[in-house]
C-alpha cells in the first residue's frame, strides 16, 4: 500500500487530500512546515511527496525539494501551487519536481497523478530496452510499431499508437484526460481535454471491433483505464 507525505500548511486542504488518498487506498502523513517535511522524509520511506509550493516558516517548496534531493531522497515529488503561471510550473519541474498541479485541483486528478508517481519504476532504464509489451490479450511491437489483439493485427495511426502505448505502460491505473494529453501530445493545458474522448472512442472502436470485453474502461468523472486482464 502506497505511503504518501502531504506537505501543506493549510490543514483543511491537507485533510481533503488525505481523505481523497485513503479513498484510493493510500496511506498518508502530514507535515505543516518545510523543516518537518525534510525530517519526516529522511526518517521514513514515502512513495510520493505532495509538496505545496508556498510554505510558512522559512523554507518554501522549492527549497524543501532542493534539501531533499541534496540528501539523496529520490522520492517522486508532486508540486501543488496556487501560481498557475507556466513559468512557475516549468521552474518547479526543472528543480526536480516530478509533476505539478495548480490549485484548485480536482481530487481525482490529484490521486490519479499520485498513483502514477507511486507506481513509477524507480529504475527507468529498463524502458529504453523494451521492444515489446503485453497487457492481457494486447501485444505491442515497439520496434515495428505494430499492435495485435488476440493475435489479430490492428492498424493504428501514429498518434493512436502513442496513446495505446501510454495506456499499456500504465495498465490498470486511472489516467485522467489531462495526464493523457500531457503525456501523449506533450503540451500542458487543461481546457478542451474532452477532445481526448473522441480520440479514445476511435481507439476503442479499433481495439474492440466486435470483441468483448472492452479493453479500455471509462472511469466516470476522472478518465480512462486500460484493463489489465
Amino acid at each position, binding site marked *: 500500500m502506497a505511503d504518501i507525505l502531504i506537505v501543506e500548511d493549510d490543514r483543511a486542504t491537507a485533510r481533503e487530500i488525505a481523505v481523497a488518498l485513503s479513498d484510493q487506498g493510500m496511506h498518508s502523513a502530514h507535515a505543516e512546515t518545510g523543516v518537518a517535511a525534510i525530517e519526516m522524509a529522511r526518517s521514513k520511506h514515502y512513495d510520493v511527496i505532495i509538496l505545496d509550493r508556498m510554505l510558512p516558516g522559512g523554507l518554501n517548496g522549492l527549497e524543501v525539494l532542493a534539501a531533499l534531493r541534496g540528501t539523496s531522497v529520490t522520492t517522486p515529488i508532486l508540486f501543488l501551487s496556487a501560481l*498557475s*503561471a*507556466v*513559468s512557475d510550473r*516549468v521552474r518547479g519541474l526543472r528543480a526536480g519536481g516530478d509533476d505539478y498541479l*495548480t490549485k*484548485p485541483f*480536482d481530487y481525482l486528478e490529484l490521486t490519479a497523478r499520485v498513483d502514477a508517481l507511486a507506481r513509477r519504476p524507480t529504475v527507468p532504464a529498463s524502458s529504453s530496452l523494451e521492444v515489446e509489451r503485453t497487457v492481457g490479450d494486447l501485444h505491442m511491437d515497439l520496434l515495428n510499431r505494430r499492435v495485435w489483439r488476440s493475435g489479430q493485427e490492428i492498424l493504428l495511426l501514429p*498518434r493512436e499508437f502513442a496513446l495505446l502505448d501510454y495506456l499499456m505502460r500504465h495498465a490498470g491505473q486511472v489516467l485522467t484526460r489531462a495526464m493523457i494529453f500531457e503525456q501523449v*501530445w*506533450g*503540451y*500542458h*493545458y*487543461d*481546457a*478542451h481535454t474532452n*477532445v481526448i474522448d*473522441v*480520440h479514445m*472512442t*476511435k481507439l476503442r472502436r479499433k481495439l474492440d471491433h466486435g470483441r468483448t470485453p472492452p479493453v479500455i474502461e471509462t472511469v*466516470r*468523472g476522472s478518465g480512462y483505464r486500460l484493463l489489465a486482464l
Partner: protein
Amino acid sequence: MRFRDLRSASSFRLALFFAALFGSASLLFVGTTYTLTTSFLSGNPDERMRAQAISFDARSPHNAEEMIDQHGLLDPAGRRPFGLFAPDGRWIAGNLKKLPNSLPRPERFFETKVKAGGEDTIYRSFLHRLPNGRIVIVSRNIEELAQFRQRLLDVTVIGLLLMALLGIAGGTIIGLASLRRLDGVTLAIESITRGDLSRRLPARGSNDDIDRLVRVVNSMLDQIQRLMGEVKGVCDSVAHDLRTPLTRLLAILERAHRHNLSADEREIELCNAIQEVQQMLRTFAALLRISEMEDGIRRASFREIDLAQLVEDVVDYYEPAAETKGIDLLFNPDLTDMPKLISADADLMFEALGNLLDNAIKFTPESGSIRVELAEGPSVIVTDTGPGIAPEERGQVAIRFHRGTRSRGTPGNGLGLPLVNAIARLHGMELRIEDHVGGCRVALATLPLSLSSSIPAQGGLNRINLASRTAAETLAIPS
C-alpha cells in the same frame, strides 16, 4: 456664508496680500511726495529767513532795533513777526513780543503754534544769536503750508483706509467666488466618491487654469467610467455565467436527493454535478489566465518552437473531433522559405490555436470544411465555412464573456477568443477576423517588431482599442 473658511481660502489671502503690498507701495509713494513737496515749498523762504537773520550781525545794535521795529510796522497782520531779545530773554524790539517757553536751539528752524482769535496759527521761525549775545527771531506764517500738509496726510489716511476696505472686500468677493467654485467641484467629487460615476466636475466654459484642470479630470473620469463599465460588464457576466450552471447544479442535486432514485441513477446525477462544477472551475481558470497573460509575466517561459510542428500537433489533436462532425480539417504545412521558428510558450500557443480550431469546429456546419495554413509573418490562418463573426461584433471578441449573436445555442463561456487575443498579444501577435468567400477567416499574425513592442501588454482600454483597430483594418482589407 462661509466666512470661517474664507480666512484659509488661498484667493482671499492672495487678495489681502496684494492689498497690503499695494498699500505699502502707495504709502511709500505718498511719504516721498510729502517730504519732497514740503521741503520744496519751505526750502526757499527758509533760506531767505536765515539770510535775513544773519544780516543783523553786521548792523549796530541800534540799527538792528530800528530795522526790526520798522519791519513790525510794515507787517501789521503779523504774517512775518520778527523779534529782538536780550541775552536774558527780555524783549527789546519787533512785533514778536515773547520767546517760546523753552528756548529752541539757535541757528535752527522751529515751528510754533500760536492761538490767536480762537484759531491756531502756525509759524515757522529761525532763531539766531547775534555776536553781542542778543537773540533774533525771524518768523513767518506757514498756515497754508501746514494746511497743505494736513490735506496730504488726510488724503493719505483716507486713501489707505479705502484701499484696505477695497482689499478686504475684493478679497472676500474673490475668495467667496473661488470657494463657491471649489464647493461645486468638491460636491461633485464627493458625489463621485459616493459612487455616482456619471457626475462630472462643473466647468465654467472659460479657458482659465481651473477649467483646464477640470477638463482633464473630467476626461479621466470618462475613462474610469468606461473601464468601470467594462469591469461591471465582466462582473455581470461572471454572475450570470455562474448562476446558470449553479441553477443546473441545484437541479441535478435536487434530483439526486430524491429517495426513489436507484444507486446507478444517483451516480449519474452526481457525475453530472461534478461536470458542472468542473465547467465552472474552468471558467474561473480561463478568467485568471487572461489576467495573468495581460500581466505579461509569462514571457519567462518562452522558448524557440517550430510553429509548423505545433500547428500539426493542434490539427492532429482536433482532427477526430472534426471528423465526428463530418468536417474536413485540412492542413498544408507548406512553409518552404518561411521562418518556422518562433519564440513562444508552446503550451499557450497550443491553447490559442486549439481555441481557434475548437471554435471553427463548433460553428462550422456539418460536412463543411476548415483549412489551416501557415503564411508570411509567420502567421496561422484558419478558414472555415461557418457563419463567421458579424463585422460589427468583431471589435467585441476580445471582451470577456461577450458571445456573438450567431453563437446562441452553442456551448461556450465567451472566454475563448479573449484568451486567444491575450495569448496573441503576449506573443507580439494579433488576432484578425476577416470575411472570406463562403465563410470566415481568423488569423494569428505576427506583428512587425516595432509595432508589437509599442503595444502595451496590459490594460483593458488598450485591449479594446487593439480589438477595434483590428476590426477597422479588417474592414479595409478587400476580401
